[in-house]
């Protein structure tokens, strides 16, 4: 089975939060996904080796970028059904405040989805949603829609 097949299976069984288990890098950094109040969220738990700058004791910015990119991917998989996987085109991340050594949570929203391209916006926070630590815009190239056969 390919990754696309495995993801389609999880999607059909409403187990998309388990997509992370299929992606080695997502497992490596320890990100996990869950539903809360009808929203699909991703959480990056604090770990000592996530610290980029030990003097300031803050997360490495690349990890926050990785969390937001993964959140966008998962969000898109949930909302757009295609038989192949979307390809990431680019990311534009804003770092709004230092990311303290506690867990980071992220959620995504599709800003616009066209026939070929989707724009997903992600927000990451630690204390509360309205106090974001970072935001990110991610563009995906979408595969052609599944052919309708009935």
């Amino acid at each position, binding site marked *: 089975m*390919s*990754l*696309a097949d495995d993801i389609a299976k999880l999607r059909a069984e409403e187990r998309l939060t388990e997509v992370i288990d*299929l*992606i*080695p*890098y*997502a*497992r*490596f*950094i320890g990100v996990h996904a869950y539903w809360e109040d009808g929203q699909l969220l991703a959480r990056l738990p604090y770990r*000592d*080796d*996530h*610290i*980029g*700058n*030990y*003097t*300031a004791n*803050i997360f*490495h*910015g*690349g*990890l926050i*970028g*990785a*969390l937001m*990119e*993964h959140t966008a991917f998962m969000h898109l998989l949930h909302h757009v059904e295609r038989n192949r*996987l979307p390809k*990431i*085109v*680019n*990311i*534009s*991340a*804003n*770092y709004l405040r*230092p990311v303290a050594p506690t867990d980071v949570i992220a959620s995504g929203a599709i800003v616009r989805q066209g026939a070929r391209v989707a724009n997903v916006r992600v927000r990451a926070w630690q204390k509360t949603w309205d106090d974001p630590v970072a935001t990110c815009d991610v563009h995906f190239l979408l595969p052609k829609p599944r052919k309708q056969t009935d």
Partner: protein
Amino acid sequence: MTNKVTSPFPPELKPDIEAVLHFYATSPHHRAIGLKSVVADADKAVMKIAYDPRFVGNPDTGALHGGIVTTLLDSTGALAVLARVPAGTAVATLDLRIDYLRPAIPKLDLIGESHCFRITPNIAFSRGTAFEDGKPDDPVANFVATYMLKPVGIGMDTGGKQP
């Protein structure tokens, strides 16, 4: 890509490349992923990361996850800045933009190369690319970022006070 960068800082305040390289080598996340500095001078910064199956984003192809490319380029861009600001200046990423031009070829080491092309008293600008070792003309990703500068101590929190 080298161009003349005028510094807003007095000429006697020089960068301390050795301290910067030590700081980079002992960063917990750099150690966790084996991210190494190769070059850090006024012209460019180069960093290297060995291919590792734990960093894969697509298990079908073995291509690296975008997150590892982001980490490599964020660190390389900041290193290019640190190599030309006064010793002790702290650098924090304000924003970054990465274009993923093509998937990285599996099993090859990845190189990040950046150049700091403008410095003001508060903000520095870097751009660069990521490519497989030995293939600088065929980049995997293009990168541009801005960094906030803080005048005291690497990453030191001065509580808003400045000397």
